[in-house]
């Protein structure tokens, strides 16, 4: 090969790759509104994005998989722990993570900004991004959930337990979160009725409880989950 042909190899290689890349960039701009539901991209969402950046959330947490790897991914956080779960952690990180091996800084975020952050994270959760991350995918039960279902025999209460975010703090058979106690034998300590009260208002059963009241559950869901947990002995 001569130096001249090497130059042409460089030139053609660069230009062809750049043409493909810029062409697809143009096409991405045509499609992104639909994929990200830009019609729901309100000023409140943008305000939430600004707050997300202002408090540097992204250097501990990933979002869409990018950022710091020190804390959980936030792409589907609204689906995972619910708006109340997000609010509680932002308002009182020192309580929410009191027993956790890693802490989150208390940044004294005003309530209005917390509201914007929840709106922003909810909007991000709706982005059609190839069903990532896998742990929050709705298309398939994780192995942990499959094992849970098999072990506990399918019951409506088990379904509530899996889908309403209980497992973000609590675990069963080693699958789930570690903020709250494992619930494998909870039925030995609390009756079904106590559990139901606990879920409605934790402080009514245990004044020192750190768990937030689960206001999003319907009466029926609360009954079923209490029945399910009360039988774990």
């Amino acid at each position: 090969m001569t130096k001249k042909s090497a130059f042409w190899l460089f030139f053609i290689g660069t230009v062809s790759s750049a043409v493909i890349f810029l062409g697809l960039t143009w096409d991405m701009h045509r499609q992104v509104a639909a994929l990200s539901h830009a019609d729901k991209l309100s000023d409140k969402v943008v305000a939430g994005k600004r707050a997300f950046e202002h408090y540097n959330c992204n250097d501990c947490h990933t979002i869409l998989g990018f950022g710091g790897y020190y804390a959980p991914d936030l792409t589907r956080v609204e689906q995972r722990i619910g708006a109340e779960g997000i609010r509680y952690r932002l308002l009182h990180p020192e309580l929410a993570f009191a027993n956790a091996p890693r802490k989150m800084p208390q940044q004294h975020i005003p309530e209005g900004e917390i509201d914007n952050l929840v709106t922003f994270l909810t909007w991000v959760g709706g982005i059609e991004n190839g069903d990532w991350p896998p742990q929050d995918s709705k298309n398939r039960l994780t192995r942990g959930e499959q094992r849970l279902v098999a072990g506990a025999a399918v019951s409506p209460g088990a379904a509530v337990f899996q889908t309403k975010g209980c497992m973000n703090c609590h675990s069963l058979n080693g699958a789930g979160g570690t903020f709250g106690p494992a619930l494998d034998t909870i039925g030995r300590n609390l009756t079904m009725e106590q559990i139901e009260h606990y879920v409605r208002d934790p402080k009514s059963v245990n004044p020192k409880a750190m768990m937030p009241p689960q206001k999003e559950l319907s009466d029926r869901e609360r009954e079923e989950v209490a029945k399910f947990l009360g039988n774990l002995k």
Partner: protein
Amino acid sequence: MEYRSQRIANWYFTIALLLFVLQVMMGLWLLSNYVFTIPQWLVDRFPFATARAMHTNLLVLWMLLGFMGGTYYIVPEETGRDIWSPRLAWLQLVVLVATGVIALAGFAAGWTKGRPLLEIPPPLNYLVVAGALIFLFNVGMTMFKARRWTVIQGVLLGGLVFLALLYLAGIPFYRNEVIDWYYWWWVIHLWVEGAWELVTGAIMAFILMRLTGVDRQVVEKWLYVEIGLFMFTGIAGTGHHYYWIGAPTYWLWVGGIFSALEPIPILLMVIDTMTYVRHRQVQIANPHTWTLALGCAVFHLIGAGVWGFAHTLPQINYYTHGSQVTVSHGHMAFFGAYALLNITVFYFAMPRLKGIEVYKPTLGKIGFWTMSSAMMLMGITFGIAGVLQSYLERVLGMGYMTAQSYMHLWMTVTLVLGVCFFAGVVITVIDLLFPKPAVKPGGA
């Protein structure tokens, strides 16, 4: 040293080395956050996020200062004339270092743009741009006045202009998170797998040519082939970051195919380096410099090429994306491709700038082997943690912190290795700041 104005490079190198030490210290603190439970009061005052912003920005700053110093060293020798304005080179150094110091103090006080790796807030961005423009103008004027164009100069200048232009993509505020990440990667990916590779290719070609005495025509021909392949695979290869951000699905194909080819130019670089050393025309005065050059090429291939390839295919990346696997790859690739490149340049230029033609390589060897083996092992232990995370959290669906508890052991081992790496860095930096001439055989 042939030109007086080359001396400015020494200041760039010295500051770069001090920032490198700071960067690694910050890295040790980050690892401690994984290993120990940091109390709430300390987390409130100095959160992980702030330390991470410092760790990554120090990396970018010291490497860019290293590249710029390297350029100021190389350009006079390539063009055959002094830097157009040494004063501007000074001014540029002051502007960039001042920006860096203000940015770091700002991070500590909570002043940040909040975009990972690009945390420097907008008013300071323009200072960075000003510094870059002074640099490009100065280097451009030197080349223009000399009118002795070489391919190495052209690639170097092209890479630096490309680098500066891409930085602009990271400055605006984007309303849509998807678009924001799309252009974030124009800075991050197209820097490290585009513009920085051009600069690296040019600097490597210059040093190898000088070290081995291989004919310029041969070196420059292969430089074209290398950068041609880097650009061809690297530009469209940006797509491997667009798999899960809400961009169209064709990126899975484009990103997968182009980035699978990305190791090829790095492999070519290794082969070229080895060939030049084998066909050297002159005796190599400082064997340690070419150990470094070869080490850089090989580590570049392992860290960027092999580790990058390992999780670039969408089917694998679905599970490893945004896990400690990424951390493993990031550390090995940056160390192999860019930290070692800078250290090679420093060892090539710094002793010479102090009038030492043949330097004593003892400390340098200890430093290099300590850093390289510690980083290789860190790549492996971060990688084990990452594979555990991918399997436990993403495949089995375990909660985030539960999965992290199984990784704790490996993060602890990594911290120990990090301390070893730090020792290697300190030895290397001391050796570079105070180089000793080699004792001639016979004790003359």
